[in-house]
Structures are given as C-alpha cells and as structure tokens.
C-alpha cells in the first residue's frame, strides 16, 4: 500500500477532478435523456458516486481523513434514499401501470 500511496503524486489532482466532472455530467445527461424512471434513478446514483470520488481524491491529496468520513455518510444517505425511492416507484407502477416519467402528470394547473 505504501508504495501506491507515495506514488499517487504521479497522477495530478486535476485528472481526478476531470474524471469526476465527466461522470457527473454523464449522470445529468442520463437524468434528462431517459424516460424510464428507474434509469433516471440510477443516474442519480452515478452522480453521487462522482462526488464520492472527488471527495476521496481530495482527502488523499490533503492527508485529511474527514473527506472519507463524509463519503461514508454520503453512502449511508444514498442507501436510505434508494430504499425509499424504489418503494415509491413500486407503488407508482402499482397505481399507474408504468414507470414512465411522462405518465406522472397529475399535478397540472
């Protein structure tokens, strides 16, 4: 491990930021493009992971454990959120027959 950690300077921080931003944008794209609610939900997970990656990268480059602790909590929240979100989606499918986003348009003016 130690060798790995000490040679981390080889990959500059900007590369990690770039990667994280890319993953985040892909997640946003997925949310906007897909009509299936579950795929949209998965895109959210992708976005959260991109953020996790960023925080861990900073934690490694700054030597601070707090970043990883924060990632820990993000994972906790993501797990809870997925549980509830999928339960809601199941209910919607039960009520409306499909999980299409455009089928959820009852809140019209």
């Amino acid at each position: 491990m130690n060798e790995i950690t000490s040679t981390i300077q080889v990959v500059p921080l900007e590369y990690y930021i770039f990667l994280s931003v890319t993953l985040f944008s892909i997640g946003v794209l997925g949310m906007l493009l897909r009509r299936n609610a579950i795929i949209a939900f998965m895109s959210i997970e992708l976005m959260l992971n991109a953020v996790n990656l960023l925080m861990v990268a900073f934690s490694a480059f700054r030597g601070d454990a707090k970043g990883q602790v924060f990632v820990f909590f993000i994972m906790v929240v993501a797990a809870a959120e997925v549980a509830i979100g999928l339960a809601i989606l199941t209910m919607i499918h039960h009520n409306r027959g499909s999980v299409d986003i455009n089928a959820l348009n009852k809140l019209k003016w």
Partner: protein
Amino acid sequence: MNLALLIPVLPLIGFVINGLFGKNISKSTVGLIGSGTILGAFICTAIVFINFVNNGSVATEVKAFDWLVIGDTTLSFSFYVDQLSLIMMSLVTGVGFLIHLYSIGYMHDDENYSRFFAYLNLFVFFMLLLVMADNYLVLFTGWEGVGFCSYLLIGFWYKTPEYNDAAKKAFIMNRIGDLGFILGLFLMFSEFGSLQFTEVFSDASQYSEGNPAILGITILLFIGATGKSAQLPLFTWLPDAMAGPTPVSALIHAATMVTAGIYLIVRSHILFDLAPETMCIIAWVGAITALVAATIAVVQNDIKKVLAYSTVSQLGLIFVALGVGAYTSAMFHLLTHAFFKALLFLGAGSVIHAMSGEQDIRKMGGLKKVLPITHITFVIGCLAISGIPFFSGFFSKDEMLAHVYNDSVPLWIIASGTSALTAFYMFRLYFLTFSNGFRGTEHQKHHLHESPSTMTTPLMVLAVLAAFGGGLGLPMELIGIEHAHFLENFLPGLEDANFDLSHETEIFLMLGAVALAVGSWLFAKKIYKENQTIPSDNVTGIQKLFAGKYFLDEIYEKAIIRPFQLLGNALYIFIEERLIDPVVNAFGTLSIKKGNFVKQLQQGNTGFYIFGIVAGVVLILVANYLIWFR
C-alpha cells in the same frame, strides 16, 4: 383650586358610567347618577365661587396638564376662574341640574334612557370646558364638543330619518361657523403668538383701534358665534333642532349652547372694542335676525317652533346689545333669558307630555284647569319674556334697549319693534294653549294629567328665578342709589363706556317699552281669547312669507347645496369612474393575465421539472463563472 378641576370631571364620570353600564343598571340609578354628578358640579361651583369672593376676587388659572408643546410655545389645558366664567359655570350647572331632574320624569318611558343621560352629561362636560377655558384652544375644544353633543341629542330618536336630517343640518351649519372660528384662531396665533386669554388681551391692549388684523380676527370669531348662536344666515338649524326631546331643546337651545357665541364675544371684548366696524356688523346682524325671527314666530303653530324662533329673536337682541358695547346688559339678559326660556321649554314639554305627544297649538286649549302648576309657571315665563314690569325680563331688556338707544336710534326702533312682537306671539301661544275650550281629540282628553313632581319641581324653581332674577341687575341709580347694580359691580371692565343717557330719558324709554308690551298683550288677548280665533291652515299675503320662513331653506337648497351636489356628481363621473377605476382595475387584470401566462409552467410533466432544475443550476453556475472569473 383643585376643586375647580373636579367641576368638569364629574359630568364626564357620569357620562362614562351611564354610557358604558347604563343598560345594566336600573333607570332610577341612571337618573340618580346623571343628575347627581351635575348637582355635585353645581355644589363645587358654589364652593369655588365663595372661595373666590372671599379671597378678593382675584382671577386665577388652574392648570390641568400641558397639552401641545411646539418649540417654545406651550398650549396647556387649563381653566380660568374669574367672575365671568364663574357666572357661566353656575348657570350651566344650575340650570343643567334642573333640566336633568326634569328629564328623569320626561324620558321615563323611553327605552334609551341611559343613553340620553350619558349624552346630557357629556354635553355639560363640554360646555363646562368651554366656559372654564383659559385659552382659545380649550374653548374651541368645548365649542366643537357641544356641537357634537348637539348632533347626538337632536338625532336622539335616530330611527326617524327627518330627525337625523335635522341633526346633520345643525352640525353642518355649526361647522360652517367653526371654519370662521378656526381661521380666526390662526390669525390670532400668527398675530399674537399665543392663544391664552391673558396673554392675548394684554398684547391687544397695545394695539390701536381699527387695526386690520384685529378686524379680521373679530369678524372671523363673530362668524363662529353666528353659527353657534343661530344668527343670520346660519340660524335655520335651530327650528329644525326641535326634533330632539324637549329637555334637549331647553338645555342646549335655550340656556347653554346658543349662549356660547355670546360668551365668546364678551370674553374677547377687549379685541372687539378695538374693531368698531365689527361691532357695527354685529349689531345690525343681530337686529335683522331678531326681527326676521319674530315675524316668523307670529305664524308658527307648533309650540316648540314658536319657542325656537323666539330664542333666535332674543339672541339677536343680545347681539345688538353686544354690538353697541353693552356687555354687562348682554350678560344680564343672557342669564334671565336662560331662566325664562328654559322654563318655557320645560313647560312646553309638560304640555306635550300631557297631550300624549301633540305639539300643534291649534289642537290644544283650555289646559288651564288640568295643568295648574304648568299653567302658572308658563304664565310667569311669558310675563318675563314680554318685559312686563318687575319680572326679570323687564329689567334686563330695558337696560339693553336703553344702551341701544344711546348708540343708534334706528337699531332701537328695530329692537323695540321686536320686543313688541315678542309679547304678541308669546301671549298668542299662551292663549291658544291654555285658554278657552279644549280642541283636541277625546283620546287626548282622557290622558290629560299634570306632570309628576320630578317635572314640576324644576318648573317651579325656574319660575322663581324668572320672576325674581331681576335682582341681579336692579337699576338702582334711577331711584338715586348709585353703583348698586350687582352684575355691573361684579363683572369688571365690561361697562359700556359711552353710556350717557340721563335718568329721565331712561325712565321715558322704560315706560314706552312697557306700554308696547302691555299693548301687544291686550291685542293678543283680544284676538285669541275673546274672539277665539284659531290660526287657519291657509295663510295669505305677507303671512305667507313669514310662514315660509322667508324661504331661506329653499334658497340655501338651490343656491348652495345643489351646485355642490352637481359638482360632486361631475367629479365622480369624470375622475372616479373614468380615471381611477380603470387604473385600479388594470392592476387586477394585469395580475390575472400574467398569472395565466406563468401558470403554463405547471404542466405536471416530471421530465420538464427535472430539466428545469438542471437548467437552473447550469444557469447559476454559468453566471457565477462569468462574474467571478471574467
């Protein structure tokens, strides 16, 4: 001196108690509180009076609190105890108490008993403020207050629309006078820098006669007095004010409120002495008013209307006396008039009470036997007002006429003519009401009864005052005793300086006036008692002018009220409907239109919402980037 502060506070307490809790306490308690507070105020006045005289008759100022502090000037709420205010205070509380006592019996069957007493107490409070004031501002407060209470009391039976109209008319005409008063106050303040009596009067004595500022102030103050004391052209409210209950007419429109204008002028006599033109105007306005009112009274058939026009006429005579500078005589006649006019009004109330509400004298008659006490007191009142010798009216009126003769003979002719007419119409009223046979319905005849003692006792007290009140100003010098005129000795500085009639001329004038009065009496007796003429409904000739009240109401209606209404209507159409309404409505329509447009955003499409979120975030980031990094 704190006792002086208690005098107006007692009626105020009565007002609060009767006003707030009157419905919950018994009628007798309401009457007790209402009259008791006035009696208390009267006793306090008497004590203050005695203290005042014992301490050498020094005018004192009693301060309640600082009211307005503007920069360097302070207008304080304070009272002024001197001879003039003490006399007025005694009059207001004394006669007021008698009338409260009378009202206990008169208003007994009314359901709004407590409200009546509350209003009466409030009125006495404001009137006391008026007469006890130390500066013009407090006087004006009382002035406005009595006008307001007059409105409340005239329109007391508010369920009848005509009574409300009469109340509004009274208040509005008073207001027109008040405008003159306020302008006078402004002018006074800008000229003297203060509104306090002592300061203004001491400053004014430096001025010379004919100063235009003083002229303006006095004319404006007189306009105020015209409104309040019902002189031409603002007197048409007083006959209409008879719509109120009779005790109200007695208290307000005979003895107290209408005397406020006279009190104002007597109090400000230093200013008026410096403006001879105003005095001339006052005298002539008073004279014309007196004559006009007397002629109208001759053809009136309502018992209260006759007395109302009689009040206007008598007040006109007092203004004539003021106009020639006879202040003491004016105060004297004010006092005696308060006595006998209140007596006459209360007597009329007793008659109306007995006649179950009938007020037309053509339907009365022969009440002499049924209402003995009322009859005797009414006779005394009539004798007093006509100036029959040795009653109070004789002394005061003759003194006034003598001073008027001294100043200008035409005025004297008008005043004497008015006095003759006064005797005529008063005895016409008397004979038609009390003599010959009863002309009313059987139903009324059954209900004829003398009034209860709460009503007759004040009548008797007032009758005594009307009969012997002349003692306040016996012209002792005519029989050789100089300086024995009580009022003249008591009120400092108010004598008529120009009086130089010889005693013989005075006695001549006196005999002439008595002859006129007795002649009118006999003339009336002949027409109405012996020939038993009853005034008919059709009037011809000049009587039509009198009966139509000189058509003044109609003139006012067409010349003043109509143009205002037309103006109001025009402004309503042009400005309100065409200008303001569209603008205000436009705001509403604009909101609706924009709302319609914006609500299209709420399509319910979740995908669109997500896009909205992302678009918003992107926008913020882009904007942030552009701001921070460029």
